[in-house]
């Protein structure tokens, strides 16, 4: 792995920091630790951080006057050893109902692959996924770690409305629609929990670096949990991850 990331100016007031072009848990760790270090050292002029699969973009409050000098500062922060500081990471257990009523593409997916519908459900819920970042829509988690037998191309024509909570696969990625939205991913289930809720202190429970496991539930359990969520009585099971 190329140890040091590279820097590029991105418009008047942002700097793009890029790692090797691949989706890799180690790169994610390196990015997040760098982000934490920058936040500790020099947040004064940096107003936001955008994490991608292999990139970290720093947005500045004002146009950057001396780009070269700013990059040198960042490079020196990168080299510092801050192994001691690390934000806590959680493994979240997200209930998903894979009933055909929600998994409206499951039959087609089974036809297109060598797997049965049951096998698709089992494999999808067997993995522990890593949250790489949140983008596309508020609360839309980009998850890494999908079983390669579950890669399904996006639908040729996107649906005009994918329902909120839909659990889906698009190409090599899996994710959950945090709100109703047009979308071209294949739908295999639905979760009753909110992935984005502005009425909560933390609108999105997960952050980059967290892990997600999908827990299969029955249709009855789905409606029960949906009710508990609506009454604000449900909290998503989580465990602290040590590494």
């Amino acid at each position, binding site marked *: 792995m190329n140890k040091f990331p590279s820097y590029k100016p*991105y418009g008047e007031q942002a700097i793009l920091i890029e790692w090797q072009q691949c989706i890799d848990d180690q790169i994610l760790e390196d990015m997040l630790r760098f982000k934490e270090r920058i936040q500790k050292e020099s947040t004064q002029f940096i107003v*936001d*951080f*955008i994490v991608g699969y*292999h990139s970290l*973009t720093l*947005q500045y409050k004002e146009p950057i006057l001396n780009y070269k000098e700013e990059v040198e500062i960042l490079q020196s922060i990168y080299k510092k050893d801050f192994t001691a500081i690390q934000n806590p990471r959680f493994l979240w257990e997200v209930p998903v109902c894979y009933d055909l009523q929600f998994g409206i593409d499951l039959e087609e997916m089974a036809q297109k692959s060598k797997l049965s519908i049951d096998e698709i459900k089992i494999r999808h819920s067997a993995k522990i996924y890593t949250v790489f970042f949140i*983008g596309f829509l*508020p609360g839309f988690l980009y998850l890494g770690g999908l079983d390669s037998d579950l890669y399904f191309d996006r639908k040729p024509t996107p649906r005009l409305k994918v329902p909120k909570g839909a659990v889906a696969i698009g190409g090599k990625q899996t994710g959950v629609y945090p*709100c109703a939205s047009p979308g071209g991913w294949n739908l295999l289930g639905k979760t009753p929990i909110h992935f984005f809720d502005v009425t909560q202190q933390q609108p999105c429970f997960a952050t980059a670096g967290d892990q997600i496991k999908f827990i299969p539930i029955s249709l009855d359990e789905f409606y029960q949990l949906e009710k508990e969520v609506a009454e604000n009585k449900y909290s998503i099971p989580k465990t602290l991850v040590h590494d």
Partner: protein
Amino acid sequence: MIKVLKAGFYSSVQDKGRVGFAAIGVPVSGAMDAYSSDLANRILNNLETDAVLEIAFGFCAFEFLSDTTICISGGSFSPKINGVPVALQTRIHVYKNEVLTFGHNVFGARCYLAVKNGFLTTPILKSRSFFQNITQQTLLCKGDVLPVGTFTNNTDSSNTSVKVVKDHFESQRIACSKGPEFDALSASQKKVFAKQFFTISNDNSRMGYRLNEVIENALPSILTSAVLPGTVQLTPSGKLIVLMRDCQVTGGYPRVLQLTNTAINQLAQKKTNDTFQFVLKE
């Protein structure tokens, strides 16, 4: 309070936007033409962060339910108070029950209505900017009653107004710098960017402007990475999208150019079928 009598096509409350929430995927939003909205607030001695109304494409009417001072800036949609034309970029004292109307378009695409001490709709994630699934409302509706800041001192109306150079609305030169993937473009693609005029398609909104022209393109998609307002993306079909204030925080199309802050404000005042060229600063 200000009552919406006619909401127009796309009127929304906007301020400086939601900065600092990219980690949960929340777009920045904020006034499309920040230059004009800032100017209106400054003329009223408001805070830079005070919320204004952004009115796209005119045809709306508002009734003032109390006395206050306002300022209108940006594009011109023939603003009138009780039928009498009023000037842009000036302080206007308005009285209870007076009606402000916006009609047909003279120039620009968006205008701003600032009111003394700002619009006071509920801030969510540190901003009042309307955005789907974040604020309760996405657009103004007929009958809405908008709370505004308390009008304290009677700042005199003024006959003088601040002139905005016509270039802000008419310039066809949109300044930009190289985007992160600019260097992946071929020499002939770069030439097209340097010379060609581009046309705004009818698919243009606060999220982004799609352009009509097709550029020969074989660039692969990129690993999903940050995008910003003002980022110009080159799609697999060879068409360009200029992202605007409500754009997503990440995207997968190559980012070939990045507009300057001034250029974003200028583009915000352009509409369907307007043409412009990109001017690359070194």
